[in-house]
């Protein structure tokens, strides 16, 4: 049975394919409908998904601290379709602000590419060490700051947990992208 994502761009499908009612899952109250009922798509029209890049793994703490890997992928970025980029006056390599419905803002570089479709965007999730534009580099114990730090994609990711296992929703949410 299909259920639309909690943060869906297709408001017209919500009535037909609604999510679950809010409920308790194991020890925690868990929200579903009380999130989906709000229309975020007007202000946050771009689908945001996340994933891996080959050089890094997981939270990237180990791989970003590996010199041979870190020199291959030095910056956090967001993939944007050329059409969406043009609409926003964004060019390849520009600094952009990714706004999340949670109120979080992350500052990353734009990679303008047809790899993502119009209306969709993608961020890799291996970066950390910068929080909403502020570098946390100096807070690391001396000599341990990874070679590469960047905004964590999950700072901008939103609510949503599987009804059985409580896996988090990191593949289908919404955002708005602005030139920073």
């Amino acid at each position, binding site marked *: 049975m299909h259920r639309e994502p909690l943060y869906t761009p297709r408001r017209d499908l919500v009535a037909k394919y609604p999510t679950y009612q809010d409920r308790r899952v194991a020890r925690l109250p868990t929200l579903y409908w009380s999130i989906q009922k709000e229309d975020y798509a007007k202000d946050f029209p771009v689908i945001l998904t996340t994933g891996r890049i080959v050089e890094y793994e997981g939270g990237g703490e180990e791989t970003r601290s590996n010199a041979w890997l870190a020199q*291959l992928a030095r910056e956090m970025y967001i993939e944007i379709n050329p059409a969406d980029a043009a609409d926003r006056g964004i060019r390849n390599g520009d600094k952009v602000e990714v706004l999340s419905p949670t109120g979080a803002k992350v500052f990353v570089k734009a990679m303008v590419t047809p790899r993502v479709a119009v209306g969709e965007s993608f961020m890799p999730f291996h970066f950390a060490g910068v929080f909403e534009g502020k570098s946390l580099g100096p807070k690391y114990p001396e000599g341990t700051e990874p070679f590469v730090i960047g905004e964590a994609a999950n700072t901008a990711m939103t609510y949503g947990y599987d009804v059985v296992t409580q896996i988090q929703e990191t593949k289908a949410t919404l955002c708005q992208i602005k030139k920073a």
Partner: protein
Amino acid sequence: MAVMKFLCDTKRCIECNGCVTACSNSNSEALVWGIQRRRVVTLKEGEPGEASISVACMHCTDAPCMAVCPANCFYRTDDGIVLHNKATCIGCGYCFYACPFGAPQFPQKTSFGSRGKMDKCTYCAGGPVPDFSKEEVELYGANRIAEGKLPLCAEMCSTKALLAGDAEVISSIYRQRVAARSNPNVIWGYDPQTAADFK
């Protein structure tokens, strides 16, 4: 004698950068941050027809770098590997202009006058100093050829896309693969047009 070459099978190359990192691993003592002797280049990024290829020094038979070098620092080994002497290199950068693959690297990224010594892929064959010496490791990196091994980039290629070895041998491996794949446009790589023809 053998003629050692690299051959990258673009149908198998997936831009995993295993070769690039393997090079760092093999030659770590000779490399500095930001210098990669090998790179993976992807064409038609994010579109149907996207293809990747791993590129380093191709150890040309008639090497342009060698032809233009004013200091005459290049030489070719009996196995057809093009090497250079960092003691006589003057860091002028001519080889970089001459090379069709952009293989020569210059560790110091400042203006022309202070380029520093040129660095490039050695086919994991060291340089013109005693084999396995401290000097060789620090200036040129590994000498796997002297150990009877092939360059680590090719040995570690995740999908066996990057082949290294005698030209005869690797071209015959590649030929067999191409024959097995038949017309590459029909069965290899996503092409909306071909896919639409398949009904």
